[in-house]
């Protein structure tokens, strides 16, 4: 198991370096002069030259990549040219907001999705199964931004149950949780349907397998068969999907953060790309990549824990 984990973490490190290098090149290749964008119409040639030097843009691209990784290993992602603050501080300040939003969204949708999927599989072709199926497909079909806007209009404007903007007061957990409800509903709702359908399909497949029939033949209680044997196997694809889904949720978090005016990594990336604020773009991209790679790696490790065939390389 340990060697599997080490191998997987090593692979994750390689993927991170490759992904960040590729993103570095892409970011620097997109048209748009960061110096003009940042300084605006008041820039003198001297100011432009000074800013270019401060951002390291006067160096060849390959030297800029090398410098980025060298500094990164020292924990230095450079300085934000606008506010003169360390990029690491800026990005680390935003990471918890996005991470919390993603984790809360995926958690509640997984809990509900798995429950609905199990129910549907166990009660196959019942009225409840059919209703669950309709409901699941419906929520998958509704785009997250529609959920966001309607939930704002209904729960924030009309009923005034939940706040429309922000992430809550720092240090006040209740307030922060209160501010999380609508954004996590917006990006988690479609995942409920998706996970429910996935779990149902996997469960039906597993419930038809020989070892389940054997367990039934031995007279084991149905609950133990479903939850102790079937779901344990059926959950594997869901774990993988949730791991990969973190990447999708990262992108969904971008518009959610904009619609709900929440701080977060997505909003930071958009703002910094718009202004070609390269140090902040790269810092944000690095952390986004780390979150994605870490979540897929974690999903692989969980799968390996749940299924010995995976860690045995079978």
């Amino acid at each position, binding site marked *: 198991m340990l060697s599997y984990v080490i191998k997987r973490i090593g692979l994750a490190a390689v993927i991170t370096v490759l992904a960040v290098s590729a993103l570095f090149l892409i970011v620097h290749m997109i*048209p*748009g*002069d960061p110096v*003009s*964008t940042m300084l*605006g*119409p*008041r820039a*003198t040639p001297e*100011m432009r030259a*000074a800013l270019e030097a401060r951002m390291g843009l006067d160096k060849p691209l390959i030297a800029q990549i090398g410098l980025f990784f060298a500094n990164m290993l020292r924990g230095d992602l450079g300085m934000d040219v*606008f*506010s*003169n*603050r360390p990029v690491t501080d*800026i990005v680390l*300040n*935003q990471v918890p907001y996005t991470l919390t939003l993603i984790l809360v969204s995926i958690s*509640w949708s997984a*809990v*509900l999705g*798995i*429950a609905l999927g199990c129910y549907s599989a166990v009660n196959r072709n019942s009225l409840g199964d059919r209703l669950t199926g309709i409901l699941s497909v419906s929520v998958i079909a509704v785009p997250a931004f529609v959920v966001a806007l309607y939930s*704002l209009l209904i729960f*924030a*404007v009309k*009923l*005034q*149950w*939940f*706040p*429309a*903007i*922000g*992430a809550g007061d*720092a240090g006040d957990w209740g307030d922060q*949780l*209160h501010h999380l*409800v609508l954004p996590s509903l917006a990006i988690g709702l479609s995942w409920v349907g998706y996970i429910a359908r996935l779990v149902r399909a996997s469960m039906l497949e597993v419930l038809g397998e020989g070892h389940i029939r054997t367990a039934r033949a031995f007279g084991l209680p149905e*609950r133990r068969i479903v*939850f102790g044997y079937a779901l*344990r196997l059926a959950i594997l694809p869901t774990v993988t999907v949730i791991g990969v889904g973190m990447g999708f949720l990262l992108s969904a978090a971008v518009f959610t953060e*904009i*619609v*709900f*005016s*929440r*701080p977060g990594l997505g*909003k*930071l990336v958009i*703002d910094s790309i*718009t*202004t*070609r604020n390269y140090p902040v773009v790269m810092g944000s991209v690095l952390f986004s990549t780390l979150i994605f790679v870490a979540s897929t790696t974690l999903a692989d490790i969980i799968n390996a*824990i*749940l299924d*010995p*065939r995976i860690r*045995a390389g*079978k």
Partner: protein
Amino acid sequence: MTTPNISWTRIGLPRRSFLKGATALGGLAATGLMLPRPAHAAEGTLKTRTYADIRSMDPAFSQGVVDEEIQAAIYNKLIQYNPGRQWGWQLDAADMIEQVDDTHINFALKDTIGFTNGFGAMTAEDVKFSFERIIDDTLESTNKPDWGPLDHVEVTGERTGTIVLKNAFQPLWSITLPYIAGNIVSKAAFESVGGKIDTQPVATSGPYLHAGWEQKQKTTLRRNPDWQGEPAAFDEIQIYHIDDEKAAEIAFEAGEIDFTRVSLDSVERLKSSPIEGTTLDEYPSLYYVWVGMNLDNPKMANPKLRQAIQYAIDVPTIMAAAYFGAAEPSTGIIAPGLPGHRETSLTGAAANLEKAQALMAESGEGNVSLTISVLNKSANVTAAQIIQANLAAIGITLEISLHEGATFWELGSDANVEMVLNRYSMTPDPYYATSWFISEQAGIWNWERFKNEEFDALHLTAQSEADPVKRAEMYVRAQDLMEESGAYKFLTHEATPVIYRNSIVPALRPDGLPLYRYFGAA
């Protein structure tokens, strides 16, 4: 070959925990979190909105109104803008300020203003430090141009001094002293942190204190208990960072903010179905929007063709469709209320199709196909589509080329640009408008590559002309020259509609931007 020992790890499925968790989550959602909350801001707290996050609380590096909205409340200047519908200024930290001659301005500070965190009373040394550091080349301040020909500040007493200019500079009174570059900081405080700060002020002096900043979320200001001027109206001001105007409108309707700018397309709805207990006010904006034609591009070289385009564009239709009738056609680059504003443009706002067709015929051009470069904002795209239809009426095929922000703002250096729909920001002095269209700026911010010696001379002399009538005439003539070149069709200055609760009394600049220090409770 060995067979791996496959053994299942015993992880009992946490069914009970799972059910407990699901129940708890549902219960939480159904009860605790859904408690109704107060619809309006707590008493004594003003909740408002800014469209971007702050960049710097250092006046040498602050960029634009977002930083200044906060700085104007926490710092003092010698003079501040007056709230209201007319541009003007009032004394702030200065007890007296007078222009002795073209290049000397004497000032005396009030003796009641002090810096927080034990940095003492405000002195003339602080004024000297604040202004001179911005023109210091080693600091590389982005706001150096605001101080124009500042030579130095002479300290003549503990609270008295003289601002010495190299030559006369009229914008000093309208965009230097009452705006970002005019903020006075504590010399001792700045020196204690190495000469410059980022987003956290070291010491402030205004009616509000900088109580906190949550990145990408909000800035909190709190009443300064040591402030001895007109008392601050609110215990606290919370300025939320809401990028999107529609999101801000929802937040306003949800009762979470008390004041915000609204989008132009919401004005009609808010007028016809007003939100109870709120007021919608419309202010003119200083921005200017125009269609530019690149004089250096061979396709635009024919002056008759350019004039035909000027007469073919129907600005009122653009106002109705792209600006929802909430903005007025402009006559130039200088907005109403500022010196040099023209009452009418030379080519008129409404299209003159007959004249445009006649000019087109005179031009001798046939099968003309042009491209207009546009920033990808909805108002711009709609305006470009109308221009496309207008030009089609005189036989010109217009292609619309959309750009996102960063690529659009690079087009100035692109000699191949043919036409462009452009929009520049503005400060309340005409000098700021003409400075981008001088010959020196061709290919930088003068995208039309308009080069006119008379215009350049007018720009230079008008900035030091003390007679307001003569100065205004100079700027009128400068805009005539721009329009006569055929390179410009002026569209609008846009508008700034704002909405606020009747529980507050907003204090706004004539262009609708907030001056929080003067906001009051109703």
